[in-house]
């Protein structure tokens, strides 16, 4: 089982990074989403794998999986959600303002960067 999970993490990361390295904002955003999936999974497994031991206290049950990483991942998921939302909207506006969704700064971008509005 561990191998399946480890390879899953690896593959999702690889796919995510490949997308992140594309030239348009949209695949980059998708790549970042994939990357967060993989990273959350990774953070999660630092509590090691356990089946049927949810960290919800019940009388008579003694075996529980490590709850801390789960809490961390929850926080991480929420934060990365906020981040994704922002970059999506930012990418959208960048596209609409410059009618081009390429991720690289085009020549002269620096020439227009200093206006107040």
């Amino acid at each position, binding site marked *: 089982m561990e191998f399946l999970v480890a390879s899953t993490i690896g593959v999702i990361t690889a796919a995510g990074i490949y997308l992140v390295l594309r030239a348009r*904002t949209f695949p980059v955003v998708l790549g970042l989403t994939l990357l967060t999936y993989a990273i959350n999974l990774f953070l999660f497994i630092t509590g090691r794998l356990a089946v049927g031991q949810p960290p919800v206290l019940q009388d008579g049950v003694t075996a529980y999986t490590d709850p801390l990483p789960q809490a961390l991942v929850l*926080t991480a998921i929420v934060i990365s959600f906020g981040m994704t939302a922002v970059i999506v909207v930012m990418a959208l506006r960048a596209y609409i*303002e410059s009618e081009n969704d390429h991720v690289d*700064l085009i020549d002269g971008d620096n*020439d227009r960067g200093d206006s107040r509005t």
Partner: protein
Amino acid sequence: MNHWIILPILLPAMVAPLIALTVRHDIVLCRVFSVASTVLLLVLGGVLMGTTAVEPVQTYNLGNWLAPFGIVLVLDRLSALLLLLTAVLGLAVVLYAINGWDRAGRHFHPLFQLQLMGINGAFLTGDLFNLFVFFEVLLIASYGLMVHAGGPARMRAGVQYVAINLVGSSVFLVAVGLIYSVTGTLNMAHLAVEVGRVSAADRALLETGGLLLLLVFAVKAALVPLHFWLPGTYANAPAPVAALFAIMTKVGAYAIIRVFTLIFGAGAAASAGLAGPWLLPLALVTLVGGMAGVLASRRLGQMVGFAVIGSMGTLLVSVALFTPQAISAALYYLVHSTLAAGALFLIVDLVRERRPDLGDRLTTAPQFAQCGFISALFLLGSMAMTGLPPLSGFVGKLLVLDGARESAHAAWIWGGILGASLLAIIGFARAGTTLFWKSASVEGTLQPMGQPAPALPFVSVGTLLGGMVLLTVFAGPIMLYLDSVAQQLFTPQQYIDTVMTPNTVQPAGAH
């Protein structure tokens, strides 16, 4: 339980929603709230720094939970120093911004306050994952500020900035995960103890985590080759935001200093001194590359951006030596370069808004309004940035050189720093003569766009320059304090003990 410690985080965290909630339609009230809160932060910074003189390390157990189980805020001399510095810069920036920039887009002041909150939190927290959270807070706030007022170029630069930092955050999580997976804890003081006990079998995982942390912090600190986000971001960010970002790079430097003196310090057994060998060469490249960029730049903003990279190089070279003397020198340079960069970015904006359609392009053009006065400010800023006397840049440079004297690589470090300052001097001299002197040979004068700026912007620039003057004049006492900071960093036992000894309000909470 000293509640003062949490105020630098809580105050802006409360003011921001208040502004967004109640007064967001009334710019004047927004400004009142924002400035007032920043002034209070300044006072707080002073008070807290004062208390560290009496009680060097103070903790604040959030939720009244014992360390390492709950999150602990730790106030020591280093964090106090940086809180104060942040407040000073913040005040100058907000004073500059309320001159009109804040009306150029929406929610400037809430975002600004939350930015300060994130930075203060990063300086105060004693928990590795909580550090991640505050990194995210200050980052997402900076995203909002970066694209404040919009504009195609700014938007595209913003997307780059966000994308790079999101990848950085992912690496941060991997690093935290790795370290947790072999130590089972997140509290920094506890880590300082546990890291020493990690078995040989687990060292590889631990050190991978450590180096990945270094990478994350290096991205913030704009270390080559992780600095690429900086020039584009700073050149396109609104001027006050760029000025505020002067402290953001220092957050990276702070994190490096903190983590690699406390967690991977002498107590880390086999993993001690993990960062140095990587940091020193890269910092030298950063230093020279940055100043070479200064010489190459075609725009003033771009030039200052590269100068910031160069100054981070100088700073990190000194950090990389990880000796008390070098660290205190690095801290002096840190304070100096923050003020210098902040001042220069504001000065760039003063030039920009007086040269319609030309902006800060380094081309000859007719003189613009207040050319003489602004050129004087620019001269002072350049002297500081290039390390010419009498401003703090020169003292800082001497301190860094002197701190590297005993190093085995002294020759490289000296050569790098002195060579780089020559590049910087040439670059700034070219820019200055082109902008301010050559213009005297051109007929006519440019009309500034909008109404000519009132005194306020000059006040805020003056604040920063004045800060550097004080930094120079009182270099003696300041270095005494910084030496004590460095001492504290290299004798972490006190920090560890204070955090690990129960400091909760008895009876243990209402539980």
